[in-house]
């Protein structure tokens, strides 16, 4: 394999971790607030899986960086524009339909991404992916089941899910639109060629929406920028919550 530029690899790993981390944080907000006990446990379990995976990525990133930093430094002590998460995952928990639609849009992408990464030319990324994919398969199953239940449930649940889909769909294309880093990683066989995943992403997503009796949104103005550090207003609020302890009490430990 060609020698990989360390800074580029570091940047790529940060991108892999950030979307899952911010989604994990959003799901964590629901701890104790889920619509029913089992769903509450499910969503926080998914959050825990995501944070576990992110910890693996960031431990690896810290090792590559070689500055003696830990995964916590990378997770907690960056500024907003340095987070490379997609816009989709920072969208708020407006209601349960939004939570499920956001989750499902991400799970579809996440599973396809990991399907490639299990064979990544970077051995550590491949090892993390082989561990993660088993967990994400479960997340995808969970969110698909709920998409069908909400869509095919009552008039109210269908209406709420349609509203969530109409509002969140605009953030989906960013997931499969590569940044400069992702393009270079694809060339090296470390990451997938995201553009080539786009068709199958929308095929499976739109088929699910149709099955769930939800109209696939049309004439969408897709939104981009999160993966390059340009976030929506929500991000600052997430980070102020997320980073509070580390900012207020630097180097604190449990």
């Amino acid at each position: 394999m060609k020698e990989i530029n360390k800074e580029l690899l570091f940047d790529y790993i940060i991108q892999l971790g950030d979307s899952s981390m911010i989604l994990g944080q959003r799901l964590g907000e629901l701890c104790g607030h889920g619509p029913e006990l089992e769903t509450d446990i499910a969503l926080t379990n998914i959050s825990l899986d995501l944070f576990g995976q992110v910890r693996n990525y960031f431990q690896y990133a810290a090792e590559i960086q070689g500055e003696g930093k830990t995964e916590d430094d990378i997770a907690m002590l960056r500024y907003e524009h340095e987070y490379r998460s997609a816009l989709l995952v920072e969208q708020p928990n407006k209601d349960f339909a939004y939570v499920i639609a956001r989750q499902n849009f991400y799970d579809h992408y996440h599973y396809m991404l990991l399907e490639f990464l299990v064979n990544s030319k970077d051995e550590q990324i491949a090892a993390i992916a082989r561990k993660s994919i088993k967990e994400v398969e479960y997340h995808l199953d969970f969110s698909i089941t709920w998409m069908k239940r909400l869509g095919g449930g009552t008039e109210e649940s269908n209406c709420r899910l349609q509203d969530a889909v109409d509002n969140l769909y605009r953030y989906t294309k960013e997931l499969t639109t590569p940044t400069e880093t992702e393009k270079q990683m694809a060339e090296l066989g470390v990451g997938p060629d995201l553009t080539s995943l786009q068709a199958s992403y929308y095929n499976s997503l739109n088929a699910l929406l149709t099955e769930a009796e939800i109209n696939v949104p049309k004439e969408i103005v897709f939104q981009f920028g999160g993966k390059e550090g340009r976030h929506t207003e929500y991000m600052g609020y997430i980070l102020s919550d997320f980073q509070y302890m580390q900012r207020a009490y630097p180097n604190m430990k449990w």
Partner: protein
Amino acid sequence: MEAVDPHIEEILSSVSDPEIPVLTIVDMGIIKKVEQKEDHILIHITPTYSGCPAMDTIEDDIVKAFDEEGLKAKVKHILSPAWTTDMITDKGKQALEEYGIAAPKDASIDKAALNGEKGKIKCTHCGSMNTKMVSRFGSTACKALFQCEDCGEPFDYFKCLR
């Protein structure tokens, strides 16, 4: 786990999963390698689930257990090969059942049970097969919640992972 010095295995077997105290880390199948280094013993462990919060405690417990025997141990986390429930020993599966957690079944039964098919998992309280899944996610990442329709009691099922 590869064959190791019986004394070392004994020490490792004294450490258990903090969330499932009847299951030793040896029976759980998370010890992957034991290396004798110049001044310490290096234990390679693999996590069950990526976010399993028990891993840090297990690491501390291993170091402590060796320390009590006057030995110095260090723990290394490895991800590959990824852990599967097949790595739980038969003794471990039996311990789980006795503790009240249904042991993981093979993949096809597991899938059917988790897709909501009734009568697939045996109740750990009364032995009835008349059971149903309550939630695919349970009290920890590795378990799902079931309920027996005969005795009415809820119980955990250790999900199959491979």
